[in-house]
């Protein structure tokens, strides 16, 4: 390491977040940890495009030259002061047990008990793979909030923080950087898992985003206006209306008939069915083979289920889990209402990680009375079906594909669903091999917490080169011995969000062309192993 590179690492302190000297960090890809063959040199890596001169003037980007939010720079000092005041009032509410009853307990524990041991930093893929850029360190972000907490929330804070040298300068520059910094963590919670104190740095990211959205109205368009709000209004975050949904269903029924010869009518709005199945609406649009596969499997297994064509009934996503408790609650409650109306025995959540998190876990703390309808993962259901032998699977049909499993953070680490998907893969894919590490120690795809759908400015470049870096490395590693394109390789990712990230990242790196690695869900692999198909259930082509 050259001298100035070392000096660079030394330079950044927590207090620098309030500096008025423009951009804090200049990203230098040569300092990111190297990937594996054939990407072991920088040449084949995509560039992180700089913002245009116009964008730099218009939007806040003084953290690291990346803009996730496209936050407009305030024009006057007065505007800045108003924003600062709003931020501080949001901060107060975040630590008020009436206003933030949802997450205050773990938040306070996180503020009080961090031992500053940096065990979390070693676990964070973004921090480690970036080559150790200080601002991406989990404790860097948490320390900022902690200092704010100690100064403004704890009694006597202002005096004490000056005494203990933990003072922090609150100005608009700090707030703008902090807003961006809250979108440099995918909330994968690896940090929370390794913390010896039980502190949760992923939670800090979530809580910070709440100050910005719930109090200041600052949020990312694709998450809010074109995300959760659009979902509440039109029925889906994709903008798909019930009419479009039903039309797509018809198209997909024909697809299934063509591929498998199976004539069936998708059960829609069937009151009294056992199960209400929620897919991520994006699946219908981008990866229809997945919900089609579910339909084939459930039909063959004789399961009583239904989809719903009500507003929100065909879109299981809930973007509020990333940035806003109120939006989260609104969407989750609508999802449950629909299930109640149909009188189903349980809700099954399709291959969508954040859907699992929202409906199965977080919603548990906003449901009462007859709204408490059991929620189950499709992974559990599918494993049960596979185990029962009802499908007569023939795994040799998948034998020409090397398969690895990507563990979606929200199903695996968060919920402890580890074995069912493995049981299934062992039954349908002879070429199945595990990544290292895997299971609850897995690494995030890099697209979590909304990243996969944020394509503002140059944020996607950062997402592929930094956030997804560790995952890419794992994929190149697990397929090391068969990396050349004559071998078909499949990254099984039972989560729409992860698939979105893989799609974008693979395009950026040219992975499919260069290495012949495809990504996809789990259900379609199962159907591919079903005996009566004349041809493979999905085509080996880019999707």
């Amino acid at each position, binding site marked *: 390491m050259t001298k100035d590179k070392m000096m660079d690492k*030394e330079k950044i302190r927590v207090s620098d977040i309030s500096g008025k000297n423009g951009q804090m960090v200049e990203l230098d890809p040569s300092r990111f940890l190297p990937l594996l063959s054939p990407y072991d040199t920088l040449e084949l890596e995509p560039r992180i495009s700089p913002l245009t001169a116009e964008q730099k003037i218009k939007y806040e980007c003084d953290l690291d030259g990346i803009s996730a939010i496209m936050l407009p720079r305030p024009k006057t000092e007065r505007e800045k002061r108003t924003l600062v005041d*709003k931020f501080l*009032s*949001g901060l107060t*509410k975040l630590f008020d047990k*009436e*206003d933030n*009853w949802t997450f205050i*307990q773990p938040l306070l*524990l996180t503020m*009080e*008990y961090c*031992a*500053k*041991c*940096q*065990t979390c930093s*070693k676990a964070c893929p973004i921090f480690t793979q970036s080559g150790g850029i200080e601002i991406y360190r989990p*404790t860097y972000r948490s*320390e900022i909030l902690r200092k704010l907490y100690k100064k403004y929330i704890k009694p006597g804070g202002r005096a004490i923080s000056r005494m*203990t*040298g*933990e003072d922090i300068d609150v100005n608009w520059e700090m707030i703008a950087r902090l807003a961006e910094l809250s979108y440099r963590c995918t909330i994968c919670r690896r940090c*929370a898992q*390794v913390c*010896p*104190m*039980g502190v*949760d740095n992923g939670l800090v990211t979530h809580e910070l985003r709440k100050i910005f*959205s*719930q*109090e200041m*109205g600052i949020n990312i368009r694709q998450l809010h206006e074109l995300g959760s*709000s659009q979902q509440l*209004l039109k029925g889906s975050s994709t903008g798909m209306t019930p009419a479009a949904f039903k039309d797509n269903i018809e198209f997909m029924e024909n697809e299934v008939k063509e591929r498998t010869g199976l004539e069936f009518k998708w059960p829609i709005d069937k009151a009294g069915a056992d199960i209400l199945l929620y897919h991520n609406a994006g699946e219908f649009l981008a990866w229809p083979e997945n919900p089609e596969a579910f339909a084939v499997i459930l039909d063959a297994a004789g399961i009583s289920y239904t989809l719903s064509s009500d507003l929100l009934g065909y879109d299981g996503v809930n973007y509020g889990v990333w940035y*806003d408790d*109120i939006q989260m*609650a*609104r969407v989750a409650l609508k999802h449950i*209402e629909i299930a109640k109306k149909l009188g189903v025995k349980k809700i099954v959540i399709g291959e969508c990680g954040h859907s699992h998190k929202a409906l199965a876990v977080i919603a*548990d*703390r*906003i449901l*009462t*009375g007859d709204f*408490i309808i*059991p929620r*189950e*993962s499709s992974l*559990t*259901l599918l*494993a049960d079906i596979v185990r029962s032998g009802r499908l007569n699977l023939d795994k040799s049909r998948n034998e020409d594909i090397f398969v690895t499993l990507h563990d979606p953070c929200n199903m695996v680490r968060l*919920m*402890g*669903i*580890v*074995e*069912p998907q493995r049981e299934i893969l062992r039954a349908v894919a002879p070429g199945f091999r595990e990544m290292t590490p895997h*299971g*609850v120690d897995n690494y995030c795809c890099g697209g979590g917490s909304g990243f996969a759908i944020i394509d503002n400015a140059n944020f996607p470049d950062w997402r592929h080169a930094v956030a997804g870096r560790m995952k890419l490395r794992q994929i190149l590693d697990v397929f090391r011995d068969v990396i050349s394109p004559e071998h078909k390789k499949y990254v099984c990712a039972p989560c729409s969000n992860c698939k979105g990230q893989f799609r974008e990242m693979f395009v950026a790196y040219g992975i499919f062309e260069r290495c012949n690695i495809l990504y996809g869900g789990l259900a379609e692999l199962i159907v591919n192993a079903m005996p009566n198909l004349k041809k493979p259930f999905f085509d080996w082509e880019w999707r």
Partner: protein
Amino acid sequence: MPNGKKRGKYGGSYFEEIDWWTKPSNHSFFLELREMMKEILLIKTLYRHNRSLWIFSFPLHLGLYLLIGFGFLLIVGGILILSGLSVIQNSANILSKSVYYLTIAFAVSGSMLGIIGASGLFVRRAFDRELRLFSAWTDYFNLLLLLAISACLLAGWATSDGSLDLLRAYTAALISIGQAPVMPGILQITLGLVSFFFLYFPFTHMSHFIGKYFAFHKVRWDDRASAAGNKIEAGVKEALSKKLNWSGSHVKAGMTWKQATTDFNPKAEDDKR
């Protein structure tokens, strides 16, 4: 929730069971207790994820536990003295004899481990760039305090109180509010530091054992689901009746959570705009 043998090994949960809500609850107080003991005694999470820090943190904690045990043994010894028994090396009484030897064993091993652990952690914090960046002066001070207590105790034992009779007599005097013996300088310092420690530690990070209990038991491990009629549901009902106060325009401040979420009509809101 710490699960049994199979699931516990890979971190699985009841969500892996089909129709999990119809199966008996996996809540096992015994397993929770066992994991808690592993954390407390072996500092398990640090061992798994940050071995190089654990090498010093473990002896520090073990040393502290032994010193606490030592304190407890002093009290027992004090009580024995007050009730007429003498606590000496070759006492006829088994209890006295055991207390005599155990007290020394705990004091010496505890303070040695304390010295190793505290000085090791201090050096790491001072010289490891990552740790230094985030350490406040209190972090160093606390370690030095623990180091000082351990070192002074060990020195006091080695130079002036090999049988620990003086400290025992001091403890007896504390219990009976009687006349304490004259203590040599080194032990006076030790006692002074210990008194300061008891006043000081509740205000510092060193009281993290309380926080950790909640963080592990109430947050990390508590995966009980809400169900009609149970405590969680009651808590939720109460929470939903709270009034919203956030200023974001999409948040309907003034309404209760229940109103703003369940009764929220997005079309009406959109038409207004």
